[in-house]
């Protein structure tokens, strides 16, 4: 079984930064997911240009989409939405990007704007 892949949807012309998730981060994501409360909220409005959220895609078919407090897990077509009030998942995921990807400052700013950057 291969590694889960994470990427930030942020660029338009050049390819988005994409990286393999380490076990520690994946474990954090899975544990945190279990603690979050299910939500009926609609997907928030996402900017057309600029940071548009993070994704995780795992070999067994699980796919997460995370944008601020909105977290969606799609397991082979079954979609569950949860609310991450502290945006821990998004912060953890962006922090897990290798430095080589040099995630742009506006990705950080997106989280900064809510005052929760680590």
């Amino acid at each position: 079984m291969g590694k889960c892949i994470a990427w930030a949807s942020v660029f338009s012309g050049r390819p988005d930064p994409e990286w393999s998730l380490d076990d520690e981060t994946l474990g954090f994501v899975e544990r945190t997911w279990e603690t979050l409360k299910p939500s009926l909220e609609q997907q928030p409005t996402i900017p057309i240009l600029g940071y548009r959220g993070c994704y995780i895609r795992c070999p067994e078919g699980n796919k997460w989409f995370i944008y601020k407090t909105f977290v969606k897990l799609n397991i082979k077509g079954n979609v569950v939405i949860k609310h991450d009030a502290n945006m821990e998942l998004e912060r953890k995921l962006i922090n897990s990007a290798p430095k080589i990807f040099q995630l742009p400052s506006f990705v950080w700013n997106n989280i900064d704007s809510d005052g929760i950057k680590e």
Partner: protein
Amino acid sequence: MALRITIDIFSGRENPVIELSENESVEALKQLKPSGRLDQKKEIFPTEPTLGYRGLLIEQYDTIDKDLPQHFRYVHGELYGKDLAHKASGDAFEEFVCGSEGLIRKIKLDKEFSEMVLKEIEEFKKLRYLLDPKIVDLLRRRLSIYWPCRWWWPCYWWCCRKCRCAPIYEPASWNDGDIKEWNNNCYNYASNYRTDTFAQPGRASGNIWNDLSACNVPSANISAKMGAISDDLIDNPNANNKCPSQGHLVALVIAPGWDYHWYRKGRNGYWSHKPGHTQVTNQDNSGNAISDPRTANRGLYTEFCTFMTVMHGHIKIK
């Protein structure tokens, strides 16, 4: 001597065809005899394709009347064909063919068909008035400066003729939620060139960008603009949001240090774009239609770089 008349009116189904007897053909040819030549500006039948009635196509077979070509078109008392741009002797030939007592009765169509054709003939007359080059020139000069193109503007399509080479905004053809959407980016969409490779300026020509710090970079480096130029897009910095006479207009913007982005101008005069892997849209970051990318909300793409022209079939991207 015999004539075959096709009522050029449909788009999808076959046009109705009327076969004339010899006597009917003789009578018809009297009305179709060319008289004076048409005004020079009217010598060309309107080239803009229109929906609905477009004239009567007349074909001579067996014996050919030497005053007329084998195939020609009759519209509103005028004849068009090879070496033919003349007034017809009879100006009521359409009534003769399509009127309630006309030859149209020979074909088995609904009773209402004759009425519909007659109405369409009148509609086409109005449309041709708008298509008259003199009127087009006059109105374009008077109005196009002040009026933006709007779908409700009756003269919409000739106002926008300057963008007639631009691609139509058809997001569904890119937004397939699959390979096409995922593997094509703003550069693919703007150049209207699907590669499924997330194309990069200059990659096809071996001159891929390596510096996104600005629109213009030190000469040792390669900017996105330089990459695009080496892919044979034409830099058109003075386009001032006006469509070129050939090809279509695109615009390059830069998120300094991070990324570049492309927009393309559509046939309706508005701009659209495809942000990365996401869907094609015609809105800016404020949710507004984009009439000019220089003034649109572009988020982090703060530097407007240039307009460029894409000549269809003349570029190569990868």
